[in-house]
């Protein structure tokens, strides 16, 4: 499928989709993130990185509208305000394994909240499955899919919304190396070919150095965010991870 036929709600390249100014986030009286400042523009490919418990998923939840800022402002472009134009791919889908479901039913659940007419479901489903390489599998049981295919079905469930912003929480967890590379290559293609803005939470520095246009390092309640080459340098990574980290950007690697 070409980018022109995707009918996405993609905003004009460079439009600020998410703007955080002095945002503090937390649970109850506990503050996880203090004074986060960053701007995510249309067409960028962001990686949120950092050790466990540093607030990556908390920030992601705020972008999804699942929690409010304790202080500061987190503004979304009006095209994202209803959340219909945000596609979310969770880390895992805790589906009851005894529940019968097909790829078709599973992916179409992504249309909840978009106000899409039932008559348009087929027109939304086929391109989304085609885009993730599951064309012709709509009648297949979800449980007959491999781990990598299930991850692709999760992404199709987000794409069926025609999102302007695709948010993924550790999308490669539990995948083997081949499936991991396949998912990331696919996300990179969505970003470059379709101009889709992508926001990925991950622990994998290797993937970030290879695919990110922008990165945010979460550490000690603060966030260092910006273009990849300014953020993902050895000095920053060594400070955040507390151990020497050498980058080999030419090979897209980390040691």
């Amino acid at each position, binding site marked *: 499928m070409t980018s022109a036929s995707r009918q996405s709600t993609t905003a004009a390249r460079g439009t600020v989709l998410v703007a955080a100014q002095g945002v503090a986030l937390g649970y109850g009286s506990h503050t996880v993130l203090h004074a986060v400042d960053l701007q995510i523009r249309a067409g960028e490919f962001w990686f949120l990185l950092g050790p466990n418990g540093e607030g990556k998923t908390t920030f992601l939840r705020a972008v999804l509208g699942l929690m409010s800022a304790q202080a500061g402002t987190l503004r979304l472009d009006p095209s994202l305000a209803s*959340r219909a134009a945000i596609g979310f791919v*969770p880390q895992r889908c*805790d*589906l*009851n394994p005894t529940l019968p479901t097909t790829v078709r*039913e*599973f992916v179409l659940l992504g249309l*909840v909240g978009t106000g899409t007419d039932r008559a348009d479901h087929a027109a939304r489903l086929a391109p989304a499955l085609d885009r993730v390489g599951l064309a012709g599998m709509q009648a297949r049981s979800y449980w007959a899919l491999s781990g990598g295919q299930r991850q692709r079905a999760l992404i199709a469930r987000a794409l069926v919304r025609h999102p302007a912003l695709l948010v993924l929480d550790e999308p490669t967890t539990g995948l083997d190396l081949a499936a991991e590379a396949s998912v990331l290559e696919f996300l990179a293609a969505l970003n470059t070919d379709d101009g889709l803005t992508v926001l990925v939470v991950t622990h994998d520095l290797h993937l970030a150095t290879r695919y990110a246009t922008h990165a945010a390092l979460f550490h000690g309640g603060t966030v260092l965010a910006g273009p990849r080459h300014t953020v993902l340098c050895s000095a920053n990574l060594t400070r955040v991870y507390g151990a020497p980290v050498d980058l080999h950007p030419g090979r897209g690697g980390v040691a």
Partner: protein
Amino acid sequence: MIAEFMASWSLFHSTYLAGWAIALLLALVGVPVVARDQIFVGAAVAQASMLGIALGLWVGVAPMLATCDWCQSESVRGGLGGVFAVAAALACARGGRTGARETPEAVTGWVFLTAGSLAVLVLAHSPHGLEEVHRLLSSTIIGASHVDVAVFAAAATFTAALVAWRRSTLLLLIMDPDMAAASGVHVRAWTLVTNIWLGVVVALSVRVSGMIYAFACLVLPALVAKSLCREVGQMFVIAPLVSVLCAMLAFVLAHHLDFPPGQLTTALLGAVLAVAWSGRLRRT
């Protein structure tokens, strides 16, 4: 056999219609219960409803309340049954929330066992009290009134309309509540409303049809549908169909064989489920 059954229609039509409407209503409500693996919640809610009804009966015969006519009314028993069932449904759901100190299974087990024992203890020394508990447990739907028929028909129509109207939202809530929240669905509000509705319909049904019939119609048709269907959405069609057809057949057979219709319906649904399970085993 059918002519024989039809001959009894003028005398028992309210009982039959109420029984079938309950079968339809509970099968619809039972799909999310089964799909979320909350079968034991259904049993706990039914048991809590019995405790409420038992308390209502106790209030009706308590010497200190002998002068209170209202205390002896049917509405007190039904009302208390509803309050206890709703409270149980909410307590069982709360057990699974983030930050809760206990698992939903632990809370559900506590509700089931406590309500079950208290229902007997409350009426143990009341005249005919244990007989009443036995009646509620043993499921006799003979005596349902035309008001019961209207109430259950209305409740079933409302539930079917809600399922048809918000089917996708319900499916997403059942299958992936996190995704539902991220899609802008008010998960807590929906969970609250569906749990209250579960408590209300189970309490109403237990009061009229007893615990076994109500619990069977809540759980067994949805389990049959789960075995037969390829998608969760289809379960909302197949479960009520199975439930009503089994109830109709069982009522005719019960009349012919002079068996209690509630127990026969439950046994028939159990047999259909065994066949569905064996069919699925053969397919896999």
